[in-house]
């Protein structure tokens, strides 16, 4: 049954939107979700209020300083959270405590202990939670279908390449030794203009924390297993901001999963020169009777013309139904009172895998996933 057969429309509060507008914008792609208010805590800095106000103005909805007040005044059922990373979980816990279902931007948090709080709050207050993810991209849906049909037998190895061919400020090695290190938050605020501010927050984060949930969610989605042990190599290879803040922009991770399954991840913000599009994002899956090679970007259309702006993507993704399918799944979870893709517990496990990878990158040892 499609959730459309249930006509209930969920009123959504955009609880801080300092980072990616694509999350609340994606939420309202589904006819059962409406944005009714933007809100945030009153004690936030000016740049936060400015971004929230701008989003509210663009969508013709009010911006209220005071989250609980906004929710009480606007009859809200769903919170859509896209704040700085270190505030994600606390906002989610507060919203769950007043009975809101939660859609949250990545990363779940930069601390696993914060993720644990969300898992507990969601269970205690019996609300649904979804981390924004890309599991319903057409290519990933196709990969899942092929595996579910048993076309390659029992899958045993899952490999994901997840490169973002973007620059992130000045290249590594470009800073004069007399200049101060790059301030992480200032750099992220500046990066908002080109959308490369996925790591916005006071505490610096590497690519594993910023983007890791996407490819790890692919592996979890396709394998259906938890990761038990991790070995990782990490490096600040490309960008001065990462080097200055001791966070990786390149990582390789070996994942040893339940039932003897193997996974690997290559992830990096590898610079705009490294690929004509957003990056080479691929899935390789080996099964006992075959193998599957998937390009996550497909289907796409190629566009080339004279005087084409250099920043314009030459290969453009198309037929993307991700937003609708995510929210359809979430509506179904709310209606049924259970389940949903990338719920709190699964997201928490992925955050713990990310933390183990970061730890392994520093220790040089195999790390158990907490």
């Amino acid at each position: 049954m499609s959730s459309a057969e249930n006509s209930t429309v969920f009123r959504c509060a955009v609880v801080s939107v300092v980072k990616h507008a694509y999350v609340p914008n994606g939420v309202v792609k589904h006819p059962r979700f409406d944005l009714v208010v933007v809100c945030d805590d009153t004690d936030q800095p000016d740049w936060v209020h400015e971004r929230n106000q701008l989003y509210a103005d663009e969508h013709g909805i009010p911006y209220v300083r005071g989250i609980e007040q906004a929710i009480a005044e606007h009859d809200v059922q769903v919170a859509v959270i896209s704040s700085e990373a270190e505030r994600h979980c606390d906002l989610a816990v507060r919203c769950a405590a007043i009975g809101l279902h939660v859609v949250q931007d990545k990363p779940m948090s930069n601390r696993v202990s914060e993720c644990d709080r969300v898992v507990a709050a969601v269970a205690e207050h019996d609300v649904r939670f979804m981390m924004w993810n890309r599991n319903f991209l057409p290519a990933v849906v196709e990969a899942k279908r092929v595996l579910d049909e048993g076309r390659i037998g029992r899958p045993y190895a899952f490999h994901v390449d997840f490169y973002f061919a973007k620059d992130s400020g000045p290249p590594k090695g470009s800073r004069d030794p007399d200049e101060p290190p790059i301030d992480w938050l200032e750099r992220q605020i500046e990066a908002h203009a080109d959308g490369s501010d996925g790591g916005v927050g006071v505490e610096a984060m590497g690519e594993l924390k910023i983007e890791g949930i996407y490819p790890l969610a692919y592996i979890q989605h396709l394998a259906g297993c938890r990761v038990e042990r991790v070995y990782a190599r990490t490096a600040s290879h490309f960008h001065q901001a990462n080097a200055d803040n001791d966070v990786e922009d390149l990582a390789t991770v070996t994942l040893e999963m339940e039932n003897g399954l193997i996974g690997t991840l290559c992830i990096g913000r590898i610079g705009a020169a490294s690929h004509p599009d957003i990056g080479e994002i691929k899935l390789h899956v080996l099964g006992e009777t075959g193998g599957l090679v998937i390009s996550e970007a497909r289907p796409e259309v190629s566009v080339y013309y004279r005087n084409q702006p250099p920043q314009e993507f030459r290969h453009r993704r198309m037929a993307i139904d991700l937003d609708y399918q995510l929210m359809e799944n979430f509506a179904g979870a709310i209606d049924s009172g259970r389940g949903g893709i990338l719920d709190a517990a699964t997201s928490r496990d992925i955050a713990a895998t990310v933390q183990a990878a970061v730890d392994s990158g520093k220790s040089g040892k195999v790390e158990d996933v907490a």
Partner: protein
Amino acid sequence: MRSRTSGREWQDKTARNMLKLGLIDSDPAADLDWQAAADRLADVTIVDADAADAVLVAGVDAANQAAAAGHHVLLLPGSLCNADDAARLAAPDGIVVMLAATGRFRPSIQEVQAVNSAGALGPLGLLRIHRWMPAGAPVSIACLAEQLDLANWLFDTLPSEIYAVRRGESGSYAHLHLGFPGDGMALIDVATTLPAGDDYYSLSLIGGDGSVYADDHHNMHLLYAGGQPEAVRGGEGVTGLVNLLGEFTTAISEGRPADPGTIATAAALRVAEAAERSIEAGAPLRLDATGDGYELG
């Protein structure tokens, strides 16, 4: 011994300084590829073994016997099971002994290394290799070493850290995770679990200034014959063998060791053996103080 040389080729080539190659330990299908490769070179011809001044053989003992008899030697891939085997290979003065592995000589890989060695990629950060094959046989040390040789070559050094896992009842899958001095890293997986048919190869190399992707996935044609279309790989033909033979003959004519030589082969085998130790220990190994071996820790 079969001779695959036609009379016309013989006439064309006899006037030159010709390397006469005897295919002692080959099979009919491979013979055709060697012949096709020789056809493309002006200075190589395939002859009967008793008329050869270079031979293709399998196994260290056969290689050493041939070398002792004054023949240049091409050694079939898989002949070296471990680093000790490589150490036993003898190469008397003036004799070229070369592993007949086409890994470095495939056109796609040569393109990768050409870009890399020209410095266009900047400092290397990451190498990823998928090597998937049919057959179901255990992934051997020799098989791992073929890919590790590429990693060592591209990074121009040995890995400083190695972690590896193996899966499959018959050991038909191995995954290697390498760290290189500086901050380079590599993931290599080798599987022999594909069903009978084509293999799959993918190599990507990412540096600080750019990247290069050599991927069978990018080079597939489509065949429509009802139902879902079939992917048909645009292969690289025998060009890898041609390149390998070119290096072999050039090394002979210049009186130098072939590149890669047995030292590189032995190094790759040592790394593969370290990977096996990592698999047994469930822990990473590091390059030891000698820079020549690996230890847990």
